[in-house]
């Protein structure tokens, strides 16, 4: 049975692809470059014309022609004579170079809008927006583990055992799941290692190639990030760090500005300013995120000690000055909370 076709909400679920983000930025630069070349050519031509005319006048007057030196030598001479202008132009270029160079270097490691091509052109908006599948249905280990995980093919098969054809790409992408897990869509059964079908469940003996996804949200090896700490204990919504995935096709790192706009649809999103997935972004949120100590028995004794400390409540009272306890005040800015 082929399930596909329209659902009522498909028109309200746009897919915004950000696969070529550089175009919007670079188009302006291209025009500037073209204009610059144009002006240089005009300037050089005008200078050449002036030179020829000067020669003509000199010849007419019977004076010496201008010396037949090369372009570069004449440019050098002109530069030496107009040092102020040349320095200003030089300073302009150096400053421009420094600014461009510095921002390029500071962009190293910023992966906002990083959206690599994936082996299967998976479309989040179809699954999340149109079919309203919860994030943790597929990324199930977010609650129990440090990894949120990418679903294994058997999770995909929960639905795609029946849904064999999609509205946009037909059977092309869905067939890739079948190739990995060994599913014969014509019979609706699984294959075994010898190519026989008729099995009800995926067979261990079918030696298919697992799907090699390109990891999108990748933190360096020296960082320990635990999803369960943030999702289970911290109670954060997925959208807080990953943005509104319901508009994505394949996975993408949502820039922090985009996440900040979600405050209306997902109340509780913490507004941040540093680029997404950088350490400064994590630190900023740790500075702003609040913890309700009363919500967990884990903090009970510590809270008592804080209130009854002999050290002098003044020194410790500063933690309560703003009437809230942030992650930072509990030690969330300490190095070995994430680097070990």
């Amino acid at each position, binding site marked *: 049975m082929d399930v596909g076709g329209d659902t009522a909400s498909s028109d309200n679920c746009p897919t915004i692809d950000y696969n070529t983000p550089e175009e919007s930025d670079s188009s302006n630069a291209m025009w500037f470059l073209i204009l610059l070349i144009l002006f240089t050519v005009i300037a050089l031509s005008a200078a050449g014309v002036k030179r020829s005319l000067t020669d003509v006048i000199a010849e007419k007057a019977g004076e010496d022609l201008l010396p037949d030196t090369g372009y570069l030598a004449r440019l050098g001479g002109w530069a030496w004579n107009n040092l102020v202008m040349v320095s200003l132009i030089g300073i302009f270029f150096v400053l421009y170079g420094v600014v461009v160079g510095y921002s390029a270097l500071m962009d190293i490691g910023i*992966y906002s809008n990083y959206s*690599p091509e994936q082996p299967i052109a998976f479309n989040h908006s179809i699954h999340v927006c149109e079919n309203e599948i919860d994030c943790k249905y597929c990324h199930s*280990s977010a609650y*129990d*583990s*440090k*990894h949120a*995980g*990418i*679903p*294994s*093919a*058997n*999770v995909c098969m929960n639905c795609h055992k029946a849904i064999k054809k999609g509205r946009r790409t037909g059977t092309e992408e869905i067939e890739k799941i079948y190739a*990995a*897990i060994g599913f014969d869509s014509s019979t609706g059964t699984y294959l075994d290692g010898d190519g026989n079908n008729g099995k009800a469940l*995926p067979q*261990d003996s079918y030696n*298919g190639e*697992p*799907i*090699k*996804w*390109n*990891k999108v949200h*990748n933190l*360096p*090896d*020296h960082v*320990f990030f*635990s999803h*369960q*700490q943030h999702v*289970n*204990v911290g109670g954060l919504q997925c959208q807080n760090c990953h943005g509104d995935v319901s508009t994505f096709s394949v996975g993408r790192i949502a820039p922090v500005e985009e996440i900040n706009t979600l405050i209306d649809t997902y109340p509780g999103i913490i507004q941040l300013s540093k680029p997404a997935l950088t350490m400064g972004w994590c630190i900023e949120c740790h500075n702003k995120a609040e913890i309700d100590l009363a*919500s*967990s*028995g*884990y903090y*009970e*004794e*510590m809270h008592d*000690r*804080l209130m009854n*400390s*002999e*050290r002098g409540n003044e*020194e*410790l009272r500063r933690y309560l000055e703003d009437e809230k306890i942030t992650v930072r005040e*509990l*030690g969330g800015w*300490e*190095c*070995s*909370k994430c*680097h*070990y």
Partner: protein
Amino acid sequence: MANNKKYWSGLDELDGTEAFKEIQAKEFQEQIPVDQFLADERHSSTTTGRRDFLKFMGFSLTAATLAACETPVIKSIPYTNKPAEITPGVANYYASTYYDGMDYSNVLVKTREGRPIFIKGNTSTGIGAGKVNSRVIGSVMSLYDKARLDGPTQNGNSTTWDDLDNAMSAAVSGTGRTVVLSNTIVSPSTVKAIEALGAEHVQYDAISYSALRMAQADAFGVNAVPSYHFSKAEVIVSIAADFLNSWLSSTLYAPDYALLRGPERGKQSKHFQFESAMTMTGTNADVRTMIKPSEEGKVAAGLLAALKGATVSNLDAGVIKSINAAAKSLNSSKGKSLVVAGSNDLATQTIVAAINQQLGNYGSTLDLERPSMAYRGDDASVSDLVKDMNSGKISTLITYGCNPSYDLPNADAFNTGLAKVKTSVCMNGVADETAVRSTFVAPDHHYLESWNDLSLNSGRIDLVQPTIEPIFNTRAAQESFLNWSSSENSDWYTFLRRQYNASYTSDAMYSDSDWNSAIHDGTMTGNDSPESPEYTAAIDTTQAERKVASVKGGAFELVTYVKATAGSGNHAANPILQETPDPVSKVTWDNYVTMSKSDMDSMGLNTYIAQEDMGSVVKVTVNGKSVELPAFMQPGQKPGTLGIALGYGRGSNGENIGQAAFQTGEQGEHLTHASGLPMPIGANAYPLTSTSEGYTIYANYDVSIEATGAEYPLACTQIHNTYMGRESVVKETSFDSYLAEAGKKKGEASWNKAHRLNVHEDTNHDGVIDARDKKNTSAFDLWHSHPVEEVGHRWGMTIDLTTCTGCSACVTACNIENNVSVVGKDEVLRHRDMHWIRIDRYYASDFSLEKGDEEGVGVIDSYGRMEDPSENPQTVHMPMMCQHCNHAPCETVCPVAATTHSNEGLNQMTYNRCIGTRYCANNCPYKVRRFNWFNYKGYKKFEHVNPAHDSLARLILNPDVTVRARGVMEKCSMCVQRIQSGKLDAKKSGTPILDGQIETACAESCPSNAIKFGDLNDSGSEVRTISENNRAYHALEEIGVKPNVFYMTKVRNS
């Protein structure tokens, strides 16, 4: 006086002619044809090709590099069909059991994503205390060894299982004797599988205990090794039995022994040790007496006599004195004492059995009702088998779980006999000494890939379950036996299940709830069939006593012993265990001849071993067989005796037993002998063992030794032997002194006085300010303390020096848990070992500053003499790791703040911030910081020894801990990954952290529970209670860094 003479070179100059003036003006006398040169057309066409070439190359190379500079793409590959019980990132623990013929432990195997990465003891349902030792913890490394065979072989060439099965079935069912030669099999089901083969079964142990067993059989009618209960023994007398390290089931004895150490109960066990070489057990003895191996039997006889009140003769006066003292202690603890002997001599063991019987120990501290089912190897049967093999009487030989070509005393005879066996098959998983000499090799699974049942004592079955799919094309040995037998046709797993459920079929694989809970616990109760020993039967020891009295020793006697990390030789290819320093000598990657200092001095051998000072190689000859090894000065070695460790010299014929099993040189390359064979680690000492009256003897009473003049470097991690009389490094006292002041407050007892500094205040209120006004060091504070120090957690550790035996299980556990790099022998030689925790071993010195005062020796000379340990010194083991000082000297000097202090008291090391200044290591008073001098996981110098190089061996790395790069500092983090994980669990469940919920790797693995970890701010925690005990102190207390690690004064019952 100035010279006014004028000099000229020619008449022209003298005359000042025009021609001369012209020439003077020119730079060169002759005309140089410059114009001619410049006019040459060829030059204008010559481009400065070289310069331009370099310019272009430089530019294009840079451009290419910049263009190629992309962030690498990381793949994320989930399962295709994920097993339900695996959550990526979450560890699953499986109960299993470790048994290799020597050690027996119930373990919990920590697996991540379907592969084991750590082994810890099963303390909830395990046998005894459920603890492990260094060898068991390190056994996870041998799973990931590329030297393991990937399928059966025939004469060295790979073959298929079907072909092998056909050949073997024919061989087994054919005419001629089929013999299975194995280590002691304690698995009831495996025994049945072997019975199904219809073969004879000869068992032998690499380290044999036949004499001990025969003594029990002769005396009490039970042919088994007794079960020992050290937890009930108030007095222990050990005659060369290394029961804490390697004697019988040391994993069971060490925790039990520790229960009675620790003086808070008001009494402490008393441990006498009589031995030749310094063993790990000997370092823990209260009274240690040096004897020669030929005197072991005499000591036993003397003890028996002393117990009856008779006088002891034919021994040295010092030994007699100790024997009398031991007898006195034993007589006052009848039924609560234990006498053990490590000798494999029937006469000695008979006498020891008589001693224990007389003391009423049988049925209490040792029993034969439920004896040990292990150690049933029969040396005599093996000798007979070897004879029959050489006579060609054996047609099929199956070797299983043993390596006789390596560890039999008559291995040469065995090898010639093996060549005469028509069909020989070896079940070992690596092409080792026995396997390469066998026709077939049918590689067995690693124990972490196996199903099995084991029974050490009657009434209890421990189960082994696989924790990973078999990595190589190996097959369970028992399955091979069943395939080759003509009577059975099931697979091994079905066979095993049917032993416990006769009607088992594979449909019921998961539905048998009894089996499921047994697998979960790792154990189940089995049929209890206790023996009925006759404890009261009279034991006639006259013949035995006559025999031991007649033993004569020569000028030099040899003792072969078992090391903590090498075992009987099966751990040779394990780099982590090779690099774990020996508990007594602190030497890695080698074995050596231990000698006393006086012997070495008289032979002119080098006693000082360091990076540039090599050991002198000596040749020890026993019955015509000799080994050449470096001599190592061992305090406590009886003069006139030598000690050589067994378990080394594996792969001496170039057998491929693993990359780390061979010696590496300065560039990390495998060293080779002149013959072209790779140099093994150490030398094989098994040929130096011998057989006497059917028993394997591990000592030899007349050996010869000569210096060869050659030199050999020994990688020793601790060269400094004594602590030179410093105050608060080690604090120890005797039990009586402890009792006298047991009630005093912390810091006031004379054996644990708080360190005090002079102050310029009248603290003693005597009206004067003088040198008598002092304050405790702890009252001084250079910096403010952390404001939340008493609010949240404050992670701390206590280490009891009384119960620490020095076994180094903590070192191995820490290395595996924290991805500590193995650096190889050359780097260890340069003191660049990377161990986060080390066990400092101090010998007592006879000399002290007070003694120097008395004898009129100057201070400098006194210090020099204090460096010499005494001939029979007392030993202290002190585990040392980052003390997590609250006023850490390392934190203040880091220029980039890579090491900081957390609110919870931990000193944090941030690897990514470290720039490698090494000022922190310079400032650390405990010298616990280790620097990554090289890229250990990538640089070719470490490719043979560091697991991270090998694509299979790197699976052992703990995914929760960063693997450090070159140029960063690292140190003990107090297993912060476990602390964070424990806190997370507590936060998830909304409960406070209970004491014992979080354990560091070292605390978890310590068999004696000497290391404890917990929250010092938790008033109910053990560490808090212990830190307030009057035995608790800080190491180097006087420098005032306020560590979070407490040590407890060592109390000896001497």
